[in-house]
C-alpha cells in the first residue's frame, strides 16, 4: 500500500525531465543533451513552477489517503492568508525563517553547507533565556539589547563550532553542523526539563513566562513583534555589505571560484569563519526573537524545524537577500497552513513533505533549464 504513493512521486518527478533522462543513456536517437554555455542562471519563474509542481505531486499523496487535495490546499491557503489572524500569524512565522534563511544563504554563497541553523537557533534561544534567568530585574532598555547580544554571540559561537573544524581540521561542515543541531536541541531539553523548568508550570517543559520588560514590543493587539524589523534590517544591511564593501566583493569571488580566489590571495579560512559567525548569529537572533517575541518563554519544541525550512527558503530565493523576504513569507504561510489542516485530521508534516518536493523541483528546474537537447548535425533545440 505504501509504495504506491512513492511510485507516483517518481512518475511526476521524471515527467518533468523525460527528455533529459532517456537519451542520456543510449544514443540511438542521435540526440544529445548538453549544457548550454550561453545560459547563466535560470529564469525567475522557475521557483513558481516548482511550487506549483510540488503542490501537484503532494496532491496525489493526499488524494491517495482519501482526502480531497483541493479542499486541503484551500484550507491551508485560507488558514495562512485568508483571515487577519492567519495573515499576522504567517508574518510571525516569517520572522525566524527570514533570519535563518538569510543566515544559511550567506554561508551557501561561498559553498559552506551550513545545515545547522536549527541548532544555532536553539543556542540563541537558550542564551536569550539565560539573560532572563540570571538577570531577572533588568528594565527593557537593558534586558532586550543584552538578550540580543547574548543570542548573537551564542548562535555565532555555535556556527564557529562548525567553521573551526572545517577550516583547520578539514571536517565536512554538513556533518558537523547537523550533529551540533542534535547537541543544541538536547541542551535545550535539558534546560526546560531540568534546572530552568517553571516551578509553577504544572510540569510543563518550559521556563517561567518572561516579564513585559523581557518581551519584544508587538504591533497593536496582534502577535506581530519587533523581530520583523530585525529581519528586514538584516536583509538590507547584508545586501548593502555585499554590494558596496570589499568583503562582499571577496565573498562573491569565493562563491564564483574558490581556487581562483585563494590564488588571488583572499584568506579563504578567515572568510569561512566570519561567514559562519554571521550565519550562526542570525539564526541565534531568530531564536531570541522567537522566545522573546512569540512564546515569551523557552519551551520544549520551540522550533518546528525553522532551521531546516530555512535551507529551502534560501534556495527558493536563489540566495538573493530580497528574494528571501518573499520565500520566507511563502513558507511562513506553509507552516501556518500546515497547522490549519490538523483540524481536518491531516498531520502537519504535510507541509514538510511539500517543502522537500519543492526543493526537488527547484533544483531539477534550475539545471533542466541550462540543458539543451541537440540532434547530432542538426540545429540545437531547447530541452
Amino acid at each position: 500500500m505504501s509504495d504506491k504513493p512513492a511510485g507516483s512521486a517518481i512518475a511526476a518527478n521524471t515527467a518533468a525531465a523525460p527528455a533529459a533522462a532517456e537519451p542520456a543513456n543510449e544514443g540511438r536517437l542521435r540526440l544529445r543533451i548538453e549544457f548550454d554555455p550561453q545560459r547563466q542562471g535560470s529564469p525567475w519563474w522557475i521557483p513558481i513552477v516548482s511550487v506549483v509542481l510540488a503542490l501537484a505531486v503532494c496532491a496525489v499523496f493526499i488524494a491517495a489517503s482519501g482526502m480531497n487535495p483541493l479542499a486541503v490546499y484551500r484550507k491551508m491557503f485560507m488558514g495562512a492568508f485568508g483571515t487577519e489572524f492567519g495573515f499576522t500569524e504567517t508574518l510571525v512565522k516569517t520572522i525566524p525563517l527570514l533570519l535563518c534563511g538569510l543566515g544559511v544563504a550567506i554561508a551557501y554563497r561561498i559553498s559552506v553547507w551550513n545545515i545547522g541553523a536549527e541548532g544555532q537557533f536553539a543556542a540563541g534561544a537558550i542564551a536569550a533565556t539565560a539573560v532572563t534567568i540570571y538577570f531577572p530585574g533588568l528594565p527593557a532598555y537593558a534586558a532586550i539589547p543584552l538578550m540580543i547580544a547574548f543570542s548573537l554571540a551564542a548562535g555565532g559561537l555555535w556556527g564557529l563550532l562548525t567553521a573551526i573544524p572545517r577550516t583547520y581540521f578539514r571536517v565536512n561542515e554538513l556533518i558537523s553542523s547537523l550533529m551540533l543541531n542534535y547537541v543544541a536541541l538536547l541542551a535545550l531539553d535539558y534546560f526546560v526539563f531540568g534546572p530552568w523548568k517553571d516551578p509553577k508550570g504544572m510540569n510543563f517543559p518550559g521556563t517561567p513566562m518572561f516579564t513585559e520588560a523581557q518581551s519584544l514590543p508587538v504591533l497593536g493587539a496582534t502577535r506581530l513583534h519587533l523581530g520583523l524589523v530585525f529581519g528586514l534590517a538584516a536583509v538590507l544591511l547584508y545586501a548593502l555589505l555585499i554590494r558596496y564593501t570589499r568583503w562582499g566583493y571577496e565573498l562573491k569571488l569565493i562563491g564564483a571560484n574558490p581556487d581562483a580566489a585563494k590564488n588571488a590571495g583572499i584568506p579563504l579560512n578567515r572568510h569561512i569563519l566570519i561567514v559562519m559567525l554571521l550565519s550562526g548569529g542570525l539564526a541565534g537572533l531568530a531564536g531570541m526573537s522567537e522566545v522573546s517575541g512569540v512564546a515569551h518563554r523557552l519551551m520544549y519544541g520551540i522550533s518546528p524545524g525553522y532551521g531546516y525550512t530555512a535551507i529551502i527558503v534560501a534556495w527558493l530565493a536563489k540566495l538573493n537577500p530580497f528574494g528571501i523576504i518573499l520565500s520566507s513569507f511563502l513558507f511562513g504561510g506553509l507552516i501556518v497552513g500546515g497547522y490549519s489542516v490538523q483540524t481536518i485530521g491531516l498531520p502537519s508534516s504535510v507541509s514538510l513533505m511539500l517543502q522537500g518536493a519543492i526543493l526537488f523541483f527547484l533544483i531539477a528546474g534550475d539545471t533542466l533549464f541550462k540543458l539543451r537537447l541537440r540532434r547530432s548535425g542538426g540545429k540545437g533545440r531547447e530541452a
Partner: protein
Amino acid sequence: MDLFTQLVMAAVSSGTPLLIATLGGILIERSGIIQLGAEGLMLMGAVTACLTYLHTGSLALALLAVFGVSALLGLIHGVMTVSLRANQIVSGLAMTLFGTGFSAYLGKPVSGMPIPGSVPKLELTFLQDVPVLGPIFGRLDLLTWFSFFLVIAMHLFIHRTSAGLHLRAIGDNPATADVMGIRVQWTRYACIVIGSMLIGLAGADLLLVFSPTWIEGMTAGRGWIAVALIIFARWNPVRALLCAYFFGVLDTLGFRIQLVGSEVPSYFLKMIPYVVTILVLMFLGWRNRNQPSGAPESLGVPYLREQRF
C-alpha cells in the same frame, strides 16, 4: 556474561543499521555521487516496513516493499544528479527533508503500534555453549548475518573484481573511464539505486530488529552518522564494519551509564554519539592532514560526456 561479550553484542545490535546504511553509502559514493539523503531514505525504509508488515503480516513482502520504495527514491536522486547534473548536496538534502516529512505523514496512523513479529534468528545450537562466540554469534537475526555477508561481498566486489575496478575508475576519473568504454551513467544509476535500497534496508532493520515500533523521526540522526561513517571508513567496506560497531557501542553507552546509576543527566549522555562524531572527524582530519582522505577523486563532480566544467 562478561563485559566484553556484552559490549560486542551491543555493538552488533545497534551497529547493524549503521553498517548497512554505510555500505549503501559507500557503494553510491564510490561511483562519484554524494549521497546525503540517507536520513530520509532510512525513515522511508522504516515506515514502509512498518506499514507493509502491519497490513500484510508478511515479513518478506515488507522487505520487498522497502526495496521497491527505496529503489524509486534512489532513482529520483539518480535522475537529479546523473542525468540533470543537479547539485548533489541539495538533492540529498531534499531527499532527507522529503523523506522525513513523508514518513511522518504515512506513519501517523501506525505511530506507536508494535509490529507483529521480528526477523527470524539463526539458531546455531552447536555454537551456543562456546564461551565468547556462543552468546555473540549463537542467536543472530538473518539481517545481521546479511550485513556480514554484505561486508565481504562488497569488499570482494570493489577490490577483487574487474567490475569493481571499473567502479573505482568511474569515481576517480569518469572521463577516462568513459574513454575506456565503461558505461559511466549506467553504472552510476545502478550504484545509486542499489545503494539506496541498502540504506532503505538499514531503516527497515532499525525498525524490525532494533526498536520494533514506528515513531516519527525514529532514526534520530543515524542516517547522518552513516554519512560520517563513510568518511571514517575511508570508503572501505571492511573498515565500515569496525567504525559502525564503534558507533554502535557509543549509541548504547549513554543508556548503559544510566543503568549504572550515574548522576549525569541523560540529555548529556545522549549527546555522546554526536559529539564523538565531530571529534573523530577532527582527529582524522588532523592525522591525515598531509594525505588524501581516501575519497573518490571525482566525488560530487557531475559528469556529462564531451562537456568540461
